[in-house]
Structures are given as C-alpha cells and as structure tokens.
C-alpha cells in the first residue's frame, strides 16, 4: 500500500470539465468504457483515473468514437486495434487468457469435487470394528449401572 501511494500520479484530475460530453447518457457510456481501459504510461490505472496526457488523449478518442455512433464493442475493438490487448484492464477470453479466466472456475469445481469425494468416502466408512457379543454385554451392564446411579442421585 505504501508503494501504491508512491506509484500514484501527481494529484490533478482525470476527467476535466472540458472533456465531458453534453449528452449524459453518452457521457455515462464513455465513463464506463474509460474504467475498462488502461492508461498505458501509468501503473495499474484506468484512463478514467489518470491525469496523464496519453490518458487524456485516449479519453477524448473514446468520446469521439461514441459521438460518431460506435457501439461499446466497436469502441473497444478500435482502441485495441491501435494500442493492443495491453490496453484492456479486463482481458478478453482467448487462447492466451484461457487459464486466467478458467482458473477460478476450475479451482472451485475441482476443489468442490475433491471435497465431496473426501467427505463421501470418509462418511461411508464404518467406524472401527463392530462390537463383539461380550463387549456389547459389558456395555449394556455399564449403561444400566450408570442409569441406576443417575436415578439414585436425583431422588
């Protein structure tokens, strides 16, 4: 966290009033898209949070594409075609990122199955040897004795 504080940019703003689109619906889309795009020269910051020049250029670019009528996917595709996959903070599912997206699912399901098997196998096992006739008799005697004693104690 200390490092993170050190890594953060000089304080100033990310989105400035002059960039904001007049149409609130389009602006909301631009903000949502900006949060998904990485500021290429920053450390783990979206262009929405960053005040770097490059982030500003990218924000303006995103807004230009939105105003010109691009869908969200088209804007993302356009930015990726210019800056590469590195610009996406949420990588798209493809060969290289299969393990990344698959890890949580595989780990969760694998873990769940392993645990179910473990519990089943152990629950199904009989505990120890069955009692012999002598042991049963001895046990009954003890139980009967303790019950009598318990009753005596209470009265």
């Amino acid at each position, binding site marked *: 966290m200390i490092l993170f504080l*050190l890594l953060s940019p000089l304080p100033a703003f990310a989105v400035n009033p002059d960039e904001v689109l007049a149409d609130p619906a389009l602006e909301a889309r631009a903000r949502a898209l900006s949060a998904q795009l990485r500021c290429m020269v920053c450390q*783990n910051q979206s262009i929405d949070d960053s005040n770097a020049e490059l982030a500003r250029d990218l924000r303006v670019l995103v807004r230009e594409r939105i105003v010109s009528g691009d869908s969200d996917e088209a804007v993302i595709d356009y930015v990726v075609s210019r800056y590469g996959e590195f610009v996406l903070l*949420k*990588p798209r599912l493809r060969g290289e990122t299969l393990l990344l997206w698959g890890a949580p699912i595989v780990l969760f399901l694998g873990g769940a199955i392993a*645990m179910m098997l473990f519990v089943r196998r152990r629950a199904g096992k009989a505990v120890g040897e069955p009692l012999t006739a002598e042991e049963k008799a001895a046990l009954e005697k003890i139980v009967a004795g303790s019950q009598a004693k318990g009753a005596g104690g209470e009265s």
Partner: protein
Amino acid sequence: MIIEIGHYALVLLLATSIVQSLLPLAGTVRNDPALMAVAPSAAVTGFLLTAFSFAILTFAYVTSDFSVANVWQNSHSMKPMIYKISGVWGNHEGSMMLWLLILTFFSALVATFGGNLPERLRANVLAVQGWITTAFGLFILLTSNPFLRLDPAPGEGQDLNPILQDVGLAIHPPLLYLGYVGFSVCFSFAIAALIDGRIDAAWARWVRPWALMAWSFLTAGIAMGSYWAYYELGWGGWWFWDPVENASFMPWLAGTALLHSALVMEKREALKIWTVLLSILTFSLSLLGTFLVRSGVLTSVHAFATDPTRGVFILTILIIFIGGALSLFALRAPTLKAGGLFAPISREGALVFNNLILTTAAATVLTGTLYPLVLEALTGEKISVGAPFFNLTFGLLMLPLLLAVPFGPLLAWKRGDLLAAGQRLFAAVGIGLFLAAIAQWSQGGGPVLAYFGLAIGFYMLAGAVTDLALRSGVGKVTAGVARRRLFGLPGSAFGTALAHFGVGVTVIGIVAVTAFETEHVVEMKPGASVEAGGYTLTFDGMRQGRGPNFTEESGHFTIARAGVSKGEVWSSKRLYTARRMPTTEAGIRTFGFSQLYVSLGDAMSDGGIVVRVWWKPMILCIWIGSLIMMAGGFVSLCDRRLRIGAPQGARKARPVPALGAAE
C-alpha cells in the same frame, strides 16, 4: 559510534538466530533437554538485540544524523517529529528492519508464553522461527543495510516522500506487518508438527490464538491502508486491486480460511492435513507479497526497491522456504492420521465450504496478479489484469460465501439440519429484505442489484444477532435467564458473531458507495455552488498557507442543506519544498456514515478552478465493518479456553462452565 553499535547488534542478532536455528533442533533429534532449552533464551536475546538495533536507527532519524545514508535519503531536519519516527519504516531498509523486529518479537512471545507447550514442540517452533530470522537478517545485512555511513556527511537530507508524510504511515505498516509476520508463527508450528510427525487437537488449540492475532492485525492493517489511500490520493477510490494491495489481501484470504479450518481441527480433529497446508500457504503468501513488493518485479516504475540483487535474494528465500515446506509436507502429510468424521451438511461442512471459496478467491487473486508477468515471460505478450477482472471474478465467488455465513454457526457439528437452520434464519432473511425495501423507498429507485446487495448485508447483520439470540435461548427461557446465558457465552461465540456482523457492515458500505455514489467535475469561481447528495457546496475562494516543510493553496467551501448551514470544508494542494513534489489534501466532511469528498484540480486561466466533488454514501461502513471484524478477532482471543491453552492429558484442565459455577 552509536550507529556502529546498532550495526553490531544486528550482526549479533544474526549469530543468535543461527544458534536458535540449529541447537534446539539438535536437541529434539538427540532428545537432549539442555539443547532444547537454548531456544527460548536465544529467541528473547534475539528480540532484545533487534529492538536495540531498531532503537538506534530511530535515534539516527530523530537526531537527523545525515552521515547515515539511509537517514540522508529519507529524512529532513525540518520534518515534524512524528514523521521523523514513522519515516524509519517509510523506506525499504527501514521497513525490512520493522519486519525483522516484529518477527523476533513474535519469537520472543512464543518463548515467553509458550510455557505450556511440550518441550519438543516449542524447541522446533523456535528453531523454524530462527531459520526465518536468519534468512531475513542476512538479507538486511547483505543487501539492505540501513547502517551504512556517508563520508563526508551531507548537511541536509532529501526528505521523505510527501505522500508518506501522514499519520497513516505511523499506523498502517506496523499493523500490516504484525499481521503478515504473525502468520510466521503458524508456519513454524506447522513445520514443527511435520518434523515431529505428530499433530492433534491440542496443536490446533495452540495455533489458533496466533492465527487469530495475526488475522486481526492484518484486517486492521489492510483497512487502515485502504482508508489512507482513500483520503490521501485525492480521487476518492478505496480499493484499486493494485498488485501491492493484492500482496496483502492474499494472505488475508488464506489466513481467514486458516482461522476457520483450525476451528474444525480444534473442535473435531478433522481437516488436520488441510490446516497444516493452509498454515504453510498463508505465510508463503506473506513471503510472496514481500517478494512482489520488495523486488520491483511488477512493472513498478517508482518501487523503492528496484535493486535486482534484492529481488534475487528474496526469491531465493522464497524458494527455500516455500519449496522446503511443501516438500516436507508432501513427505510427512501421508503419515498424519485423519481425524473426525462428518456429514456434508454440518458445521464442519460449512467451514469446508468457507475454505473452498476463500482459497479459490486467494488463488484467483494470485493468478490475476501474476498472470501478466508469467505470460510476458513465456510468450512476450503484454496483457493487463485490472480492477474490472477482479471485481467480476472475486465478486461472483464471494456471493455464495456471504449468503452462507449466517448458516455456519447455526449448523450442528457432525450432522446438521440445513432446513432447520434455514427456518431459524427466516427472520434474518425477512429483516434483510425489509431494510433493503426501506432503502429502495427512501432512495426512490436505482439498480435492483444494489438493493439485492444491501439485503445481503442486512441479512448478515441479522444473522449474526440471530446466532447470539439462539445461543442464549431467547424465546425459550425467561429474559433474565437469557441475559445471564448471553453473558455466560464463551468469548469465541461473541467473536464469531461480531466478526460476521462486521462483514455485513462492510458489505453494506461497499454496495452503497458503489451503487449510489455521485460525482461532479465542475469548474468553479468564487461564489459558485454545486449540489451533491442533497447538500449544496459553495466555493468561497482560495487562501495561501505555509506548513513546516510545504506551501499550500486551500479552497474554502461552505456546506448547506435546504438553506441551513452544515459547516465548512477546506480542500488543499500542497507543494513539498525539499522534493518539489505536489500532493492533494482532499477536503472530507462526514455526515453520519456518509462523506462529502472535495478535491481540487488545476486552476483555469479565467480565475476558476476545477473541483471534483463526490457524495460517498455509507462509505465509512467499509472501514467500520473491518474494525468490527478485528474486534471480533480480539474478543475471540480473550476466550478463557484459549488463554488456558490445550488440555493437558485428561480433561481436568477444562474450565468449569461459568453458568454452573454461578448457580
């Protein structure tokens, strides 16, 4: 001269830690009590030496002795005293000294309060602590020595990074390290048990207080760091899924899992092998975090330790300890006998579910943090994994866990009744939905998902209260008896309820601020106003100011609601003179649990200034909830059964139930 004495004490510490690593172990192998008895005295001596060395480094900072390179690089004679002291650990060398200080402190605690531990176990545990101390002592002396001198001594220091000149630096790292390093004790216990090949419920009873303590400190440390970032960075975020944050969050997730599995092991002797593995994994993640942060391996351009020799050194420590521990585990785990049986639907089953989700979550965060690094190393392709990825995957994983939390304590050990637990939680579910509906009505609309999230939060609060109510027999016995039973409940019952309540509070804060936060970016001239969260914020003008080592420009704002004045707030931009570095000091005004957050931007040529105003509803709940969780940990730690320690031999050491004694 005094600096050299501190340096010498550090070298002596290395010598004692080597003794502590070897002799007790030889003692357990040869069954020689005299050798085993070396461990506690070596541990206490090691702590005293480290504390002395640390005190001398602090003395160098306090007296601004710039002949010490480390002080020259990170301090300034004009710096306020509190930052001179906290500045000791505001840099790489000093923070490693703090790491070592806390590590030896915990060893000394085990040595001092471990009187009821079996001799062999204590000797082995302290020996393992000795290995860790040796590794990090060597690391400091060889690659990160804070006692190196400069000749000639410069007249003035280079000052501490201004962002670190904050009370947060005095609190956050020590708490975080108490947590991080605290898990080393659990690790040492696990290794000691594997060395001896013996492990039982008593072992879990010794480990659990350490896990609880480390976890409580880590919880507070992470929460404190989050709040610090929130108010210091000036853009209102409170969690960024930054690799450095993830480095502290992964041990927390694994540690939370450990806390719960140790419970199963202590009560039911089940999950032994798993608990040992988790103890190893949790501290391994702490070590990994230290490596990630200290080596600068994660494309950090500003990391304060980008020296590759340090990275390689820590990586070696990492490989030896994690690799060694896991090999030992693989070798010895099959010989550990598995314990108690349980049905899938039972308290044990619920805790297994908890462990499954928490470890998957920790693994997900680990994958996301390391994936870009590994992919680039293997294929040369650069990708980014950021907040949107973590929010999605982590959020989905947490959902079932949050829903399950109130069920856990209501299920019986061995075989539980899910339906009955569900019936008992009927009221909690109702309360959750009802309160969410009220919130919906008062907000007048908004995303459905947000109210669903709020309902989960309220349901968790009600669930925690339900647990305590059922335990004290509310509704079944008279109010007086229920009250007496409530106060007679063991500390761990209160701790559980408190911690789960805290999770609910945090969830409410996160959902509320994510869904209902409003943000305004406006250019303001004196006299202009802006609306946020029902408050009107009026900009009055700027003022120049001067602090001990900075100059500042502050904007003054008055706050009103429906024409009635509700106070004022200052928001500033500072320029620290020594480093010519600007910072923002956001203006924050608290109303109940919500905050108005005002941050200043660039001045415009026409005399206006860009102002960013956020309304952050219920945001304080995020950190208050974490503090409640921490409190839950400490309350649980006060449980008499943990203080007394494991039963010795027969069950005679079990305390008489408080209720029976009172009657």
